């Protein structure tokens, strides 16, 4: 067996080399070129944020700057309570991530580790719920928040976003919960663990990587939110979030590009950091969710 394989390998390598070599240099050049094109908007954003005003308003823009300055950032943080909006965005995103992760973990456990009536119906309902265009619900949610006196509060952003990230989170976590062997659960019960103990001290840590991957999606959709902030935070500016604050610098007639780019940079960096941190788990998590 081994001999056959050993004998076969060089030939396969030969084939591979023959098939792949001619195109590889071109492919790598193409990959690097595409990477540069894809990264360019972000590069330009950061570059413009650090540029002096004169250079931004130049009709001969150069792809570098020799006089980086923090002027735009100073204007952004000075002109408005930008720090406060940043904090509001963080509070909303963190609350949604934690709440939806916990709720989705419980629900995913229920639909994967138990057999009960209506289980399949529920799963299909979660799948359908995932497709609901949440933007269409802005109108009824507006009235709901008004009736409960929650307009202009951060709750009006937190609550709907929890609801909207749940279906996808449950659907995705299902695969991770399923992957935990049942023998482990039996062993835990034989050792006298209660269901609650098994849930939080054994299952939860094992599913944590999946929870991280799921959190990326709820974090991003919440952090990116623009419509709800625009519709529900109507009069109390102190409850505004970043996406609203950013648009203050963008006036269609005469946009303050330096300010817009600086504010955009401030808004993008946390997501980028978060993404890079969980990148590995995200890719493997997605693979799992899709394969499942």
């Amino acid at each position, binding site marked *: 067996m081994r001999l056959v394989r050993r004998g076969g390998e060089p030939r396969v390598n030969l084939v591979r080399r023959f098939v792949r070599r001619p195109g*590889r240099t071109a492919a790598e050049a193409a990959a690097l070129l595409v990477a540069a094109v894809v990264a360019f908007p972000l590069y*330009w954003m950061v570059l413009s944020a650090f540029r002096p005003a004169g250079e931004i308003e130049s009709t001969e*823009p150069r792809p570098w700057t020799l006089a980086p300055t923090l002027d735009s950032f100073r204007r952004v943080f000075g002109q408005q309570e930008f720090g406060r909006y940043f904090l509001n965005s963080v509070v909303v995103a963190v609350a949604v991530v934690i709440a939806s992760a916990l709720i989705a973990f419980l629900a995913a456990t229920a*639909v994967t580790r138990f057999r009960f009536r209506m289980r399949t119906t529920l799963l299909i309902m979660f799948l359908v719920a995932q497709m609901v265009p949440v933007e*269409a619900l802005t109108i009824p949610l507006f009235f709901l928040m008004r009736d409960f006196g929650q307009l202009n509060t951060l709750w009006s952003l937190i609550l709907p976003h929890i609801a909207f990230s749940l279906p996808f989170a449950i659907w995705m976590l299902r695969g991770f919960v399923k992957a935990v062997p049942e023998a482990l659960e039996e062993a835990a019960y034989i050792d006298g663990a209660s269901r609650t103990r098994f849930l939080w001290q054994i299952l939860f840590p094992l599913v944590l990587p999946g929870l991280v991957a799921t959190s990326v999606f709820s974090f991003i959709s919440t952090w990116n939110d623009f419509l709800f902030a625009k519709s529900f935070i109507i009069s109390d500016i102190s409850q505004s979030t970043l996406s609203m604050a950013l648009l203050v610098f963008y006036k269609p007639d005469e946009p303050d590009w330096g300010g817009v780019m600086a504010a955009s940079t401030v808004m993008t960096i946390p997501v980028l950091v978060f993404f890079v941190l969980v990148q590995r788990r995200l890719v493997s998590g997605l693979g799992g969710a899709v394969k499942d």
Partner: protein
Amino acid sequence: MVAQDTVVVERERPARATAPAPRTPRGRRPGLTPWLYLAPALVVLGGLLAYPIYQLGLISLFHYTQAQVSGGEPTSFEGLGNYRELLADEQFWQVLLATVLFAAACVVCTLAVGCALAVLLTRVRAVPRLALMLAALGAWATPAVTGSTVWLFLFDADFGPVNRVLGLGDHAWTYGRFSAFFLVLLEVVWCSFPFVMVTVYAGIRAVPSEVLEAAALDGASQWRIWRSVLAPMLRPILVVVTIQSVIWDFKVFTQIYVMTNGGGIAGQNLVLNVYAYQQAFASSQYSLGAAIGVVMLLILLAVTLVYLRLLRRQGEEL
């Protein structure tokens, strides 16, 4: 199958309740536990998803404008009046057509770019692969609002680098209907191809390399390998990313709203979502906005049903 078997076991269970369960203690007597675990999710989804959907339908059947919202006038039942008004509205049909075409263009471009780059990723060594992955993750992570403003700036008539490089003078991209849609399309593809690329790449990596080598040995071209070997094997993944893209691109809001300043000159760049928003919150025609929302909901529900059918045909166990 499995579910049915277990249900049978459950039914027998009470008769021998005293004997300790030898195997699989879970599932034997679930009782209320799964519902306890499900309770928070069901409460949240019921209150903030199901109930608003019901409300949306209700509002669309009433006459509901600023006068009713501020509490002055009583609401009056309109039946299907709002829908009749909508269907007679020429702009609604225009917006609907624009939405469908725009979403279709976005989906096709996103899938083409994402799949092509996923294949490219499998053919390069680690460094270019990492570079492309990181760039794509950056685009993916960029919030829609900042992505929109950055792309606007890139294509700005006076100070944007694109017009300089292409030598277009001070051509304003957002003035023309098609060039504005094209600009939004670029941004949407830029921020949504990474999901397709990463997912399809993960799928290709899972295909055994012997299969690809056999195809290459038989003299199949790259395109032929993709079409006849990879695409059929990746079908389940392609179904998922296609449906997700359809759903995302059909309800684009932020990009259109920010990049065309609320729907373009004289509403030339409106899509359903923005149109519903404008009707409700700008013109205070809440019931008309709700009716548009219901139309969107129904269209996406149809897409979902197609998705469910495809899943079922693939024999996915729920």
